[in-house]
């Protein structure tokens, strides 16, 4: 993985050739090698250790979440193009025969499936908010969570850093505007220091989410104007367009209002999250330090393998 691999296609090919990722026939859906998984495990431990002094409550979510929760969160207003909903066959024997007939004819048999109550989780924190709101008022000092989940976003691509199913680790702070902003500030510093300790080039920049359509352009401008999203970028498949590996998001009181997350005095809570794109960080490490993790620079191995 030398300087020539600075494009998506050749990096992906080189990951396949080196047995780091395995093809599935679908862009953005890959098998991972043991070495790749070990790097992710090590990085997760590093993240957990860095956040340990803050005593977050850890919750691990499955890759599917309540569809009703996704709907109420407003996800379909902003990212209808990325969402995925699980469908299943719920018919009887007659419909089953019809389905097999359609499959044999090469027809679209999927229309005989119906939407289940499950949607694929688009970001690790979506299932959190209603769970917390159901527990009653948020204490004055706020709440802190450490989350992880496999996430889905429908954006097939040859860019190995844009997978359709990937893991995200997150810290989420729910509290006053001041509490969540200072949480975000502290992670902007800690996140950068962590990536620099892994000898990876990075920069932090103002960013926006990929909101849908022309209305989305306006949402993106609003998000930038208000400085709500920052990303830590590392060159993975391009030097000109580095990859967002960490993101730092201030939601204002959007989720507080949506889910009725309040303090005892009735004030709505604000929230912020820092997300770690685990596959992206692992890809950045393989891209910059080589396909054999045993041969990575001693300083990098010390950071990852001493935790």
């Amino acid at each position, binding site marked *: 993985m030398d300087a020539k691999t600075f494009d998506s296609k050749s990096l992906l090919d080189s990951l396949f050739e080196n047995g780091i990722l395995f093809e599935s026939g679908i862009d953005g859906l890959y098998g991972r090698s043991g070495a790749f998984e070990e790097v992710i495990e090590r990085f997760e431990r590093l993240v957990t250790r860095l956040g340990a002094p803050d005593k977050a409550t850890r919750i691990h979510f499955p890759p599917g979440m309540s569809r009703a929760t996704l709907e109420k969160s*407003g996800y379909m*207003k*902003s990212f209808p193009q990325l969402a995925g909903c699980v469908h299943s066959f719920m018919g009887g024997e007659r419909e089953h025969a019809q389905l097999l007939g359609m499959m044999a004819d090469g027809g679209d048999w999927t229309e005989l499936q119906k939407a289940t109550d499950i949607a694929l989780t688009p970001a690790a924190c979506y299932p959190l908010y209603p769970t917390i709101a159901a527990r009653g008022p948020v204490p004055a000092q706020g709440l802190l969570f450490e989350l992880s989940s496999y996430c889905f976003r429908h954006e097939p691509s040859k860019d190995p850093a844009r997978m359709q199913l990937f893991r995200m680790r997150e810290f989420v702070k729910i509290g006053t505007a001041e509490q969540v902003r200072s949480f975000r500030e502290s992670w902007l510093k800690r996140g950068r220091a962590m990536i620099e300790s892994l000898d990876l080039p990075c920069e932090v920049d103002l960013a926006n989410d990929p909101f849908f359509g*022309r*209305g*989305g*352009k*306006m*949402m993106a*401008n*609003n*998000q930038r*104007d*208000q400085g709500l999203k920052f990303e830590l970028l590392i060159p993975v498949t391009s030097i000109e367009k580095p990859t967002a590996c960490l993101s730092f998001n201030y939601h204002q009181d959007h989720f507080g209002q949506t889910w009725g997350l309040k303090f005892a005095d009735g004030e709505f809570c604000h929230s912020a999250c820092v997300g770690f794109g685990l596959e992206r960080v692992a890809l950045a490490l393989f891209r910059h330090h080589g396909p054999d993790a045993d041969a990575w620079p001693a300083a990098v191995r010390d950071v990852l393998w001493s935790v």
Partner: protein
Amino acid sequence: MIDQIRSLLEQHPMIPLNFGALADDANLYDAGLTSFASVQMMLALEEEFDIEFPETMLTRRTFSSLASIADAVSQLTRKAA
């Protein structure tokens, strides 16, 4: 034009703001306008006046008050005329 815009927005089911009680230069975001509602507002204005806001105008500032909306709409309708 401001009155036409005010009555259009007042009737919009997805923008829950009391436009009748808002001064021309009142800040709509301070009055509770969400990002999503501002997108609904943009789409409703485009349909009503048969205009298309260029990307450079799709900003928070353009939709911050009835006066600045009227300003933007009149620029675009003038161009079209």
